[in-house]
């Protein structure tokens, strides 16, 4: 009988071992997917029982968790008046609609589960209190952010525009402003009242202006003539100089087609022959299109990619889209690409980085939005370090481009008293017919003052098919530069 009993004992052991293996399977190998299952309310309840970290910018609190009496012990709120201008960057954190913006991308740090906060968790574990989340401090300058958002709201005096502004510090890549319009009040989405929360969400998601989208980083549009900065850089590298003679005619035949391409509004560029500098300043299309064969597609793509127009999304710690040339097929498309049409797309942030690269003696920095990550006791866990993304152009070419952009600024009728600006305007046609409203662009920097800006206006009251970059986008860009120079430096 003992032989059978021994076999029974083996069977019993096999059962116990099978249980251990299955428990290991569930608790180790399936653990992550089970923990992250949206129906597992443990994680959510855990998060809401911890004090979530703050989001701050230059000492101003943009998102904070305060004790609440409701279903959850902490209520997330976005202190006014900064909540609306900062909303597309900060995002929101809602029990019902999950998260967006930095609240989403920096979630693990804000909720305290990030590995960089392990020592904080250990302290919490030893002292028996619930660990807090870490703080995220941004590079944004509140003054610049307000100026940008307010300008977009004012528009041409007829109401808020749909569009965005991005301002950066060229030498470091710090993002100083990242305004998107229309925006929203994140407090509406975190409100404790179910009905008003869903009403707010419904209204926001049906708004044609897409307020939940960050227009400065997530929307990429044809850049129009601001692309000529890149084309000019490529032309200069190909041997042209500002004094090179170019055609001043009002139109030219697109290569390989029977279509004539005109300058804006069919105007001439002085007629006969003019200089490359003058063509750039007046934003004539004909000389750029004609320079395409000299530059060649390969060179053009190379220079564009050095300026960050490589189709890759920048890593700024929040959702972003890349800028790039798209597909260039035949010579005609290539020619159109040189003036920022065809398939070329840019985000406002990408455009700002283009201007910043010229400003920073040709060196392109990586754009960064997060200045530092702090533990709950405000000690710095990780600090932003300026990172070079690569040389866009040589310092000599950057200096030449700066001169050309100064000339362009002089022609677009702007300027801030006492400050010399280098800029380029853009007006991008899209869609068919004359009724469609163009996207208007403005990129600018202040030589020697380490600040660059880009503005993109998509549409809005008072924006018509006649609107050009110089009329709407330019003034907004100058206003932001002024605010950043006055306040930030």
């Amino acid at each position: 009988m003992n032989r059978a009993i021994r076999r029974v004992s083996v069977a019993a052991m096999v059962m116990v071992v099978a249980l251990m293996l299955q428990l290991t399977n569930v608790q180790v190998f399936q653990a992550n997917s089970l923990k992250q299952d949206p129906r597992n309310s443990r994680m959510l309840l855990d998060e809401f029982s911890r004090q979530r970290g703050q989001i701050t910018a230059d000492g101003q609190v943009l998102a904070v968790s305060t004790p609440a009496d409701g279903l959850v012990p902490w209520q997330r709120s976005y202190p006014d008046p900064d909540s609306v201008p900062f909303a597309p960057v900060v995002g929101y954190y809602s029990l019902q609609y999950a998260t967006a913006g930095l609240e989403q991308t920096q979630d693990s740090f804000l909720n305290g589960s990030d590995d960089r906060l392990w020592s904080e968790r250990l302290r919490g574990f030893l002292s028996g209190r619930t660990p807090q989340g870490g703080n995220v401090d941004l590079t944004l300058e509140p003054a610049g952010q307000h100026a940008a958002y307010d300008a977009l709201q004012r528009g041409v005096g007829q109401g808020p525009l749909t569009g965005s502004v991005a301002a950066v510090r060229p030498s470091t890549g710090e993002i100083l402003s990242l305004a998107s319009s229309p925006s929203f009040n994140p407090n509406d989405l975190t409100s404790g009242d179910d009905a008003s929360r869903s009403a707010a969400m419904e209204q926001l998601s049906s708004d044609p202006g897409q307020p939940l989208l960050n227009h400065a980083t997530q929307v990429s549009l044809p850049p129009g003539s601001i692309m000529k900065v890149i084309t000019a850089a490529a032309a200069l590298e190909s041997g042209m100089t500002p004094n090179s003679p170019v055609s001043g005619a009002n139109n030219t035949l697109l290569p390989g087609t029977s279509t004539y391409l005109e300058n804006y509004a069919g105007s001439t560029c002085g007629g006969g022959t003019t200089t490359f500098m003058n063509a750039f300043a007046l934003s004539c299309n004909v000389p750029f299109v004609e320079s395409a064969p000299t530059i060649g597609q390969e060179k053009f793509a190379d220079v564009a990619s050095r300026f960050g127009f490589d189709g890759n999304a920048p890593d700024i710690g929040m959702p972003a889209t890349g800028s790039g040339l798209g597909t260039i097929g035949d010579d005609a498309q290539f020619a159109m690409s040189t003036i920022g049409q065809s398939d070329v797309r840019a985000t406002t942030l990408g455009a700002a980085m283009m201007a910043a690269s010229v400003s920073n003696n040709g060196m392109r920095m990586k754009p960064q939005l997060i200045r530092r990550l702090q533990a709950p006791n405000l000690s710095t866990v990780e600090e932003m370090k300026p990172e070079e993304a690569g040389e866009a152009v040589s310092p000599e070419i950057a200096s030449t481009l700066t001169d050309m952009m100064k000339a362009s600024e002089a022609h677009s009728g702007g300027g801030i008293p006492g400050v010399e600006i280098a800029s380029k305007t853009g007006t991008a046609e899209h869609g068919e017919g004359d009724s469609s409203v163009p996207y208007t662009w403005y990129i600018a920097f202040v030589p020697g003052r380490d600040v660059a800006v880009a503005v993109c206006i998509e549409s809005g009251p008072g924006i018509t098919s006649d609107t050009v970059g110089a009329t709407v986008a330019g003034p907004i860009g100058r206003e932001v530069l002024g605010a950043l120079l006055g306040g930030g430096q």
Partner: protein
Amino acid sequence: MLDSIRQRRQAGNEGGRWSEIGLLLFAVIIVGFAAAVTMMSLEQSITVDLLWLLAGYFGLLAIAHAAVRIFAPYSDPYLLPCAALLNGIGLVVIYRLDLAEQAMDPENASFDVVRQLMWTLLGIVAMVVTLIALRDHRILAKFGYTLGFAGLVLLAIPTILPSRFSEINGAKNWILLPGFSIQPGEFSKILLIISMAAILVSKRSLFATAGKRVFGLDLPRARDLGPVLLAWMLSLVVLVFNSDLGTSLLIFATVLTMIYTATEKVSWLLIGVVLFAIGATFAYFTFGHVRVRVETWIDPLGFYDGTGYQLSQGLFGLATGGVGGTGLGNGRPQQVPFANTDFITASIGEELGLIGLIAVMLVYAIFIMRSIRIALSVRDSFGKLLATGLAFTIAVQLFVVVGGVSRLIPMTGLTMPFVAYGGSSLLANYIILAILLRISNEARTPTPAVASPAMPPAAASPGAGRRAGA
């Protein structure tokens, strides 16, 4: 008189009673520490309640140990500490869930831990009474048919009773009386094992007789198939009338194992597997609730909003615990329905983690292995079969309940022996413990020196036990 004192003192050393005391203290320290941690994290302070609970637990163990010293001095010293540790861990987890319930609804909170402590007391009383009343386990062999009949009657009572006296949460396996309720299946399980052991020993020669040989297997004669068929039908009846998958599986597996142990014939196992397959297929196609369990087992998250909710929550709990657990008092085991009974595995897994659950599994493994050791070393066939049956039934019960919660097998709803909240289960398991202690006392009692010359040399030799049982 002097002899008996000397014998007892000797038993203290040779029977391992000092090891038992050491291990029991070890269990008290672990349980005390666990209870203190729980209280610290949930109440932020240690109150007198804890002292009372621990004192109660400690006192009960002292009684149990004293009873073993007096009535079964040579019994195995590891079984009681294992049971005590499991029981203690159960008490801590039940207490922890009580606190969670109290935090949520202070008005209606019931303190299950107090009731469980009371059941522990009754369990230990039952153990002591069993040890006193049962001076020799072989007496039980005489009542094979009577106990078997009693077991069947007990099992049948809920079936006959109207639902309001017998049904809780869909399983009709209760006897609900005013004031208290019992699950007769827990007790009839013991009776059926005793009865089976007795019948098998008396008819062993019949079972061992070979019938036809087919494909190298000795098939039993048709008329010997009786007990297997009976067990098979019994388990089906339990399944059909009581909707109690767990008990039906438990009875069938235990009886089959005992028949195999008695005859050492693999053919019985094959017949059993075939019968099980037939029964399972029949149940699957006939009963909705069996199908639901299988569907839920295959995809618990797919039925999250309905039948899969409990299992999904249990899996979430286990996953949240991960390897190290959240720590006692820091998880949310109360999210799982029936967290202190059927799903106490998930509660332990969440707060003590994989490490804690594996530790609990190992304590069970020690308990089961020591019990099987008793079966190996006891000299009489009845004792061997009985110990094997009891050891294996604990193993199967553990497998069925933990396997169900961890999705190794479909959920069937059984209690985790000694750990889960529930009076019947605790009482029954302490009686099983007492019977095992009794058999082991028999196996380990040294042969009295004065008697040895009179004994036949073969029986006194160390190999005798093995041979006698073979």
